[in-house]
């Protein structure tokens, strides 16, 4: 008689696997990538491809020749890190900075912790912050690369709205003066504005969010908690003094808040496991982001906010448990 397979239940498995989930994240990033290629041209595409190639190569080399373990590039997580890192860089960053960022992201932030699933900090953000601290000039050079459609954005200033506001405020101008001098149209921000490769279009990022939610790749808790907190907290400050503090919509649409809350803070490995924990984590990120923006010396704070909250995740997981069945 033929031999039957015997193993414990369950005998079937759902459709999700690591590779499909990562592929879905990549798909969700495509609208943003498309918009940035539209405005930044070849340089955005090149940056992204270099990022992917460098991250995958670093992971492959380390696993194959240093750790001598199974090579896991097939799960696409290194590719996702590469794209996210590229999304966080200014569009005309030089290629070598991308390579350094990849080595830091994969080699230091991911592999030294034990590879996929073991790292405490979001690899792409570690890479980005490392570059920001080491090469501050390149990392805040927002001048537009030559592109096919460059005229769509006012790039003459070479600074992001957040940077312009921060600098002018420090010179003692009021927000009303700053807004009068510069044309910060919110509608335009929705479609395209100055910023890193991935930040350029708020709308494209939101399309990505919808895709991730529909495909159930992520739970809505983290992005909603961050965006809600940023809106409420900046709204309170704005209510207190609207000459010094920017309004909530400005805060949501500028800088990396959308990119960070949708794609960086939701990184599985470095975010909490329970829904309650996710909300706490999101609120923390929202508060720290606004604090850095309004009171810190950097114009943008979401990267630091996420990294700081990454560090609290083990603690959150230990003390914030999911809602148990049968406990009042």
């Amino acid at each position: 008689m033929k031999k039957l397979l015997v193993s414990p239940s369950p005998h079937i498995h759902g459709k999700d696997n690591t590779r499909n989930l990562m592929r879905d994240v990549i798909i969700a990033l495509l609208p943003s990538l498309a918009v940035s290629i539209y405005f930044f041209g070849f340089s955005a595409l090149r940056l992204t491809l270099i990022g992917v190639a460098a991250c995958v190569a670093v992971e492959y080399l380390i696993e194959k020749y240093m750790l001598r373990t199974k090579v896991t590039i097939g799960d696409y997580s290194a590719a996702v890190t590469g794209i996210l890192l590229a999304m966080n860089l200014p569009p005309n960053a030089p290629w070598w900075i991308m390579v350094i960022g990849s080595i830091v992201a994969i080699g230091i932030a991911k592999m030294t912790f034990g590879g996929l699933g073991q790292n405490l900090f979001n690899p792409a953000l570690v890479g980005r912050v490392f570059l920001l601290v080491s090469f501050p000039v390149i990392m805040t050079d927002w001048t537009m690369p030559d592109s096919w459609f460059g005229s769509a954005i006012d790039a003459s200033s070479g600074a992001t709205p957040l940077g312009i506001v921060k600098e002018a405020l420090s010179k003692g101008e009021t927000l009303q003066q700053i807004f009068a001098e510069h044309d910060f149209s919110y509608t335009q921000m929705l479609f395209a504005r100055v910023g890193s490769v991935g930040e350029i279009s708020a709308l494209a990022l939101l399309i990505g969010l919808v895709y991730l939610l529909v495909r159930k790749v992520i739970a809505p808790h983290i992005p909603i908690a961050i965006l809600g907190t940023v809106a409420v907290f900046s709204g309170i400050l704005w209510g207190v003094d609207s000459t010094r503090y920017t309004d909530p919509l400005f805060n949501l649409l500028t800088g990396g808040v959308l990119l960070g809350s949708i794609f960086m803070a939701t990184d599985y490995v470095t975010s909490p496991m329970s829904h309650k924990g996710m909300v706490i984590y999101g609120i923390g990120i929202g508060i720290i982001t606004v604090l850095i923006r309004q009171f810190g010396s950097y114009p943008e704070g979401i990267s630091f906010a996420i990294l700081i909250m990454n560090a609290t995740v083990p603690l959150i997981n230990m003390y914030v448990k999911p809602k148990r069945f049968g406990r009042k």
Partner: protein
Amino acid sequence: MKTFSIGGVHPCDSKISAGAAIENFPIPEVAYISMSQHLGAPAEPVVAAGDKVKTGQLIAKANGFISAPVHSSVSGTVKSIEMVKDLAGNLCKAVIIDVEGDEWMEGIDRSEDIVREIKLDQKEIIARIAECGIVGLGGATFPTNVKLSPPPGKKAEFLIINGAECEPYLTSDYRVMIEMPEQVLIGAAIMMKALGVTKGFVGIEENKPEAIRVLSGYSEKYPDIQIVPLKKKYPQGGEKQLIDAVVGRQVPSMGLPIDTGAVVQNVGTALAVYEAVQKNKPLFEGILTVTGECCPQQRNFKHRVGTPISKIIEAVGGVPEEAVKVISGGPMMGKAMCNIDAPTLKGSSSVLFLTEKQTKRKEEGNCIRCAKCVSVCPMGLEPYLLNKLGRAGRMDDLEANRVYDCIECGCCSFTCPAYIPLLDMIRLAKGQVMRIMRSRPKN
């Protein structure tokens, strides 16, 4: 539409045998009637080799409070009482009967007539259910009379009939509900009388609209029994999840369903209760689905308990070429058979064939901490953590994280994108922790 509040998954439906009417499976030439057909102590044979038995005759008596008597499913001569292998290959005592004809015990009403009037009183009903060897047919095979007698100090408020049949593939309960709806409702009414409650529910998942429609058609005749359509979600048929879904109460951790005032019985059990109380027929038959995409025939059989499963498989053309696994029960919680010659039991609900593509486990990857196992766990546990703690053998932490609450539904392993066999580890750890907890002196 109602459903349970925490977690759950949506495996594909695969109710491909739903259209197959229940057929009588031929009586085997030899019946192997196991003494371990229920939760609790095996029954004790009261017949010896050479005895003549009739269909429905008592052949083994209950052995202790949590146990159930066993009746012959065939008529003939007792050949021997021996150890036979069950479907997992473990030995269990069985009465082996050479079948001659099919002569039933006097007193069993074999007519098709529906008997509506419930003549027995509360005590007599429970006694009859015990005598007839009725056990829960939803999987656990817990003696039904025990469940209908709440422990002192606990009071039942309502009865819930489990018609969720949330496991993919299974259709035996569905067929019973649409072919014998009134019998099921009378069975429910009998159990309500036994419990002294006036409120009953039948919870049915929305993927069985026909069953909902048919049973709702009797609402005027049985106004105390409410048909509750439920959203399709696994494990809705789990006792705790069903109570939560139907009446919105949660069984406390370490507590019993009766703590919420609910008693849950399966559709098949309700039919068995009807037959026992109204027709005087002990439980010696069962309804069983034979199915699987690779199986050329989709059937629902009424079988005599003790029929070798291999005979049933032969009737559909043998184990299909592509099948690598034969499962008794559903694909989420059923048991993989290693011995298809094992006899059917009272609680046998299906023979399911799965192909290599459907069931082969994939290579396990790193936990990516996606939290999907956490969000699907219907008990609100953290499977990834229990798995980690289990591997490290940290018994205290496993207990603190309530591994004992796990209902072994398999949602976690089913979902894990890294193909980690979470439930394998959790089941093992749960067993160890429960042993430690039981060994502690009670104060």
